[in-house]
């Protein structure tokens, strides 16, 4: 059987763990410790993982970060398990799930759930750039911090960013994203005040300031967290796009492919078409080339390339065409993508008949925007505003990143889609505001300098004008926030 793992990569040295084996629909599958079940299956050649709820459409991998419902499977008898964030281990019994599952029978697994109460100073939901940076600032001052992530590895999307970061060296400029994650996590692991709890899903807020979290493990725990401050930095999920057969296996989010090839070292396909030429689309196209995937083109619905010129130039000089004024109109294939068709669009973004171009590809990557993961904030009743240019529902906040819920802060993509550098900065701003309230004398001055850099320098760049304007629309004064709270 062919192994789709990448052995040699120009940027990443894949250090694979111990070999483990599990069963998938009764067949033995070998994988390496540190891989997700889905990555292990993908490496072994599986491309279809589930069906639509009605059971009539096949489902491949899509988001790969535990957000969509494309890979819901039965793991050790438990249905609706997202195998993209389920770590492989010996003896796991994985079965594909067709349509809506039966109610799970009371199993030994369920009975082992125990309850644990934990009191901390700060609960940080999300272990990406915003959450980790905030934890670093808070932990350094001795606050007890609990950072949660539903993945089995901390780092969020940093772990799959292979390019050297832009910006200033203060915020890791010049360092590759996955190296930044390694550095932050290693620093935090040395701080006894900070605990990073993986496979921990914060599912809700309860009276008197309690949060409920499901901590999955050999012994699953219903973790009840009492925190004096909360920073929600739960990131964002990829959007899909409406076109014929947009659910064929092989059509996935750009980040889904990044996860496969850069986090797990699994080749997502042989021939790819990328939809969307924002920075995500351009960067993923370049990363595909690095992983040895042929990139047939990038389609962009607007008349101009969406992302930065330097990212576009990187793929253009390796022969990747960018079709501006084009959109995908359909995908074709029996049980996976075999062909994708793009077409020119008119001024109203309607496809122009007779302008179709066909591509024989087994991979179509959608890089058409992200939407914030706001469900926890929504359940808490945090005030939000609908802002399509920032990704959808965005929490209102003060410039100190505090929401309408006192002592609850937001940072990173959840607070409006932007990028990792501003996520680090927003995490810091939230952290310094907490430190100010805890009586640290230098916090106000430090925060002031960071705010000044963010608003009066970094976000003054004309290429980030759009996100600056969007963030301004959801940033309200302290007085206004007080009024809204009443």
């Amino acid at each position, binding site marked *: 059987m062919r192994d789709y793992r990448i052995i040699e990569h120009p940027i990443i040295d894949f250090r694979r763990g111990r070999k483990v084996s599990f069963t998938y629909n009764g067949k033995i599958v070998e994988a390496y410790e540190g891989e997700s079940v889905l990555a292990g299956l993908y490496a072994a050649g599986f491309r279809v993982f589930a069906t639509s709820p009605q059971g009539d459409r096949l489902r491949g991998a899509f988001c790969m970060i535990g957000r969509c419902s494309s890979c819901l499977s039965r793991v050790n008898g438990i249905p609706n398990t997202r195998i993209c964030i389920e770590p492989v281990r010996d003896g796991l019994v994985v079965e594909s799930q067709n349509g809506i599952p039966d109610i799970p029978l009371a199993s030994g697994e369920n009975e082992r759930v125990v309850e644990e109460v934990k009191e901390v100073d700060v609960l940080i939901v999300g272990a990406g750039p915003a959450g980790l940076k905030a934890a670093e600032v808070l932990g350094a001052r001795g606050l007890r911090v609990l950072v949660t992530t539903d993945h089995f590895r901390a780092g969020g999307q940093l772990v799959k960013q292979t390019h050297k970061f832009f910006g200033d060296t203060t915020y890791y400029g010049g360092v590759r994203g996955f190296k930044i994650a390694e550095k932050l996590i290693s620093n935090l692991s040395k701080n006894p005040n900070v605990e990073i709890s993986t496979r921990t899903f914060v599912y809700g807020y309860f009276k008197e300031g309690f949060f409920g979290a499901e901590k999955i493990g050999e012994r699953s725990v219903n973790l009840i967290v009492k925190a004096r401050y909360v920073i929600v930095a739960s990131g964002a999920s990829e959007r899909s796009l409406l076109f014929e057969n947009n659910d064929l296996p092989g059509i996935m989010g750009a980040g889904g492919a990044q996860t496969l090839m850069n986090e797990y070292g699994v080749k997502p396909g042989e021939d790819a078409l990328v939809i969307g030429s924002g920075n995500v689309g351009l960067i993923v196209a370049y990363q595909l080339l*690095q992983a040895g995937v042929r990139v047939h083109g990038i389609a962009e619905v607007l008349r101009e390339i969406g992302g*930065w*010129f*330097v990212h576009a130039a990187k793929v253009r000089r*390796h*022969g990747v065409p960018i079709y501006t004024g084009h959109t995908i109109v359909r995908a074709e294939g029996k049980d996976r993508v075999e062909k994708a068709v793009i077409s020119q669009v008119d001024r109203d973004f309607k496809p122009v008949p007779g302008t179709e171009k066909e591509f024989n590809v087994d991979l179509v990557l959608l890089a058409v925007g992200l939407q914030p993961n706001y469900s926890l904030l929504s359940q808490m009743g945090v005030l939000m505003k609908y802002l399509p240019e920032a990704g959808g529902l965005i929490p209102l906040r003060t410039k100190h990143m505090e929401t309408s819920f006192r002592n609850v802060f937001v940072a990173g993509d959840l607070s409006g889609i932007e990028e990792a550098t501003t996520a680090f900065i927003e995490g810091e701003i939230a952290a310094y505001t907490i430190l100010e309230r805890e009586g640290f004398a230098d916090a106000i001055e430090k925060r002031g300098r960071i705010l000044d850099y963010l608003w009066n320098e970094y*976000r003054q760049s004309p*290429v980030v004008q759009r996100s600056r304007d969007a963030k301004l629309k959801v940033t309200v004064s302290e007085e206004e926030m007080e009024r809204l709270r009443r």
Partner: protein
Amino acid sequence: MGFKETGVLTLQDMVKAGLMPTEERLRKGPVALLECPEQIPCNICVSACPFKAISMDKVYDLPRLDENKCIGCGVCVAKCPGLAIFVIDISKSDKAYITLPYELLPRPSKGARVKLLNREGKVVGEGIVVKTWEYEKTWVVTVEVEKDLWFDVRAIKVEGV
């Protein structure tokens, strides 16, 4: 069509953005071309240059090269996150030398014959690798090319072994 439509920079774009060294400086020997025409919030080249030849007031300014301080060492080529810096040497009579960043496989080696790609990825000739070094997984490769290709060649294709 401009570079925002094509993803391809022209000599005029470089001149317009104030990024082009003088002809006199180009003829003198290796010098960095900072092919960074948008005001992106990034100043890595400024801190990268050992000779303090690149400057910027605000993080989003276009980089300014002091062409008299630049010796064309190529450190910025390795460090620029946008892979947007190239060192050009057109001081020799018949050949041009282009130093470019390379992050693909197979890895280039000195003396290898490689395909030369222009800004659109089209093969425009063959060249010889005369120097390679690596920094944090970015290879900095100098290729010898026909002199008239000094502004066209921006990538190489290394044939597999």
